[in-house]
């Protein structure tokens, strides 16, 4: 009589071979997932180690000067930080209205058929590599727009790079913001329509506030993307290595990402100083820290929108 439960238990456990295989496959997949952790640890260790090594060698007074001239051991961090911020702010000035407007139209106004036609525009734009936008910013945006508005501008400018980065950022902002607005339950809209609200009122007074955390998240992500964008700046901002500190977006200038890339390809003949090349690790660490903080902040906002409904 007491034999039945054990045999049922054995039956349910299945064959030993199947269980072994199960454990093996599960282990392989876990290994693959753990690999992601290994990568981020490698990034952090590589950056921190090399950055500290550089900081111990460099004269700290050189981190504050008139400009970013690695060849002459002048590493004014403020120069490239200001350049990055100017580009990112201009990018957001372009991308915020376009991205949010497109998101609102697609989520609240477009009928399914219109949506199927219009959405691929953003998808194709998202697929354009940034090096192409760099070429576009240098050859079209700068001469065609920036130089026409401000005749003092040279062949390169931070403003043109900023507009180019902005165009790149539009699809990201639009898709994250649209997801947030799309996730607002229909019952909220219907309640508003039921008391006589118009579509514009529903969009701006009901859907927008309900989705605001996701929308803020989309803007933070967009800003983070703009801060980390390299190729547009490397081509169109005119930073061939050194740059004077400037707070005028119409000047040519240098950003953090641009500084890293020109140090890497040695376009400023960095061989002159052994301190110049490793400076890119320090700048890389700063860039990593800034974007990580922005991404974590946007994650927080997204989590808040998820808790609401």
């Amino acid at each position: 009589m007491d034999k039945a439960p054990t045999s049922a238990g054995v039956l349910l456990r299945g064959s030993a071979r199947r269980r072994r295989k199960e454990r093996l496959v599960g282990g392989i997949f876990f290994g693959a997932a753990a690999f992601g952790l290994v990568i981020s640890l490698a990034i952090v260790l590589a950056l921190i180690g090399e950055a500290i090594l550089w900081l111990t060698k460099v004269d700290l007074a050189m981190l504050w000067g008139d400009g970013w001239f690695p060849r002459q051991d002048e590493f004014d961090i403020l120069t490239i930080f200001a350049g990055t911020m100017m580009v990112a702010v201009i990018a957001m000035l372009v991308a915020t209205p376009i991205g949010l407007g497109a998101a609102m139209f697609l989520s609240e106004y477009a009928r399914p058929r219109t949506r199927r036609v219009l959405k691929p525009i953003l998808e194709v734009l998202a697929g354009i590599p940034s090096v192409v936008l760099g070429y576009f910013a240098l050859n079209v945006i700068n001469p065609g727009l920036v130089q026409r508005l401000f005749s003092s501008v040279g062949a390169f400018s931070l403003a043109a790079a900023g507009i180019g980065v902005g165009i790149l950022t539009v699809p990201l902002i639009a898709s994250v913001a649209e997801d947030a607005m799309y996730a607002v339950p229909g019952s909220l809209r219907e309640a508003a329509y039921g008391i006589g609200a118009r579509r514009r009122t529903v969009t701006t007074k009901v859907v927008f506030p309900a989705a605001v955390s996701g929308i803020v998240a989309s803007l933070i992500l967009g800003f983070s993307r703009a801060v980390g964008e390299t190729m547009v700046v490397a081509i169109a901002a005119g930073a061939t290595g050194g740059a004077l500190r400037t707070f005028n977006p119409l000047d040519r200038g240098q950003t953090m990402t641009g500084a890293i890339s020109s140090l890497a390809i040695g376009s400023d003949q960095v061989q002159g100083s052994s301190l110049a090349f490793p400076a890119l690790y320090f700048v890389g660490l700063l860039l990593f820290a800034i974007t990580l903080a922005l991404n974590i902040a946007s994650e927080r906002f997204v989590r808040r929108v998820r808790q609401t409904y």
Partner: protein
Amino acid sequence: MAATAPPVAIRSSVELALTGRRADVRGRLFQVALLLTLLLSLLFLVVLLWVTLVDAWPVLSERGWNFVSSNLSSIESRAGVRQGVVGSFVLIGFVGLTALPIGIGAAIYLQEYARDSALNRLLIANIRNLAGVPSIVFGILGLVVFVQTFRSFTGPSSSGRSYISGGLTLSVLVMPIIILVTMEALRAVPKSIREAAYGVGATRWEVIRSHVLPYAAPGIFTGTILSLARAFGETAPLLLVGAVTGFLSTPGHQGVLEIFQGPYTALPTEIYAWAKLPGEEWRANTAAAIVVMLVAILAVNAVAIVLRNRYERKW
């Protein structure tokens, strides 16, 4: 039959009564403004493609296939993109062989196996953050790890600046994206499908292999194709792991390993190098190279979109 739409006359008079006989002018203006933002994006795209085509036309019409089949050169009229195209496809091959299996495996673990433990939450948060790290930071990682630390494997003769370093760097870059899109595709498979398989006694791996993966396959396929297209156009990290932008000689009679350990170039890197050169001829060459790259990328994107539309299903 009474429930069919009322005649237009009745409908518009009801609408008029409801809106208090006032046209919603501001509402219309708002709608038009929103539509304009989308049309502005379209305008960017059209101008971008148009300018590139116009710039590229002299090169493409005069040299045609010769441009695609020539090697790098410092002479404008002889420079071509053959090495860049070959290099980019080799790099993508590396990504496909390394990042795809690891990324899909990781996604299966995180979506199908992982319980809600602290470690697994850390893994997922970590991968999300990795997907947001700027690509040039991955370039620095590749420089430190692949070019410098593992130089004896990645390219003893090319000081580590080889296909292997470039390919592995791009793999590490797109892996978080592949994991996220695969997780999304797996999440879209309804629970009932899994439960049906468990109900007839399948083990977890059997459920995944025979039920979840086949249903998630179109989504995984589309997502990963798009991430490979992204890797194809990625430039910044390759600058750090040393894609050649000047002259590159490709000697014959080399083993496969020697080729992979040797110097390389990629299409986007060539575009970057040319974009910085002065003169109309180089501008035309740059535009022509962009056309070649966009044709490749847009073709891949189109395949992905068609696949999605064809196999996408709603549960």
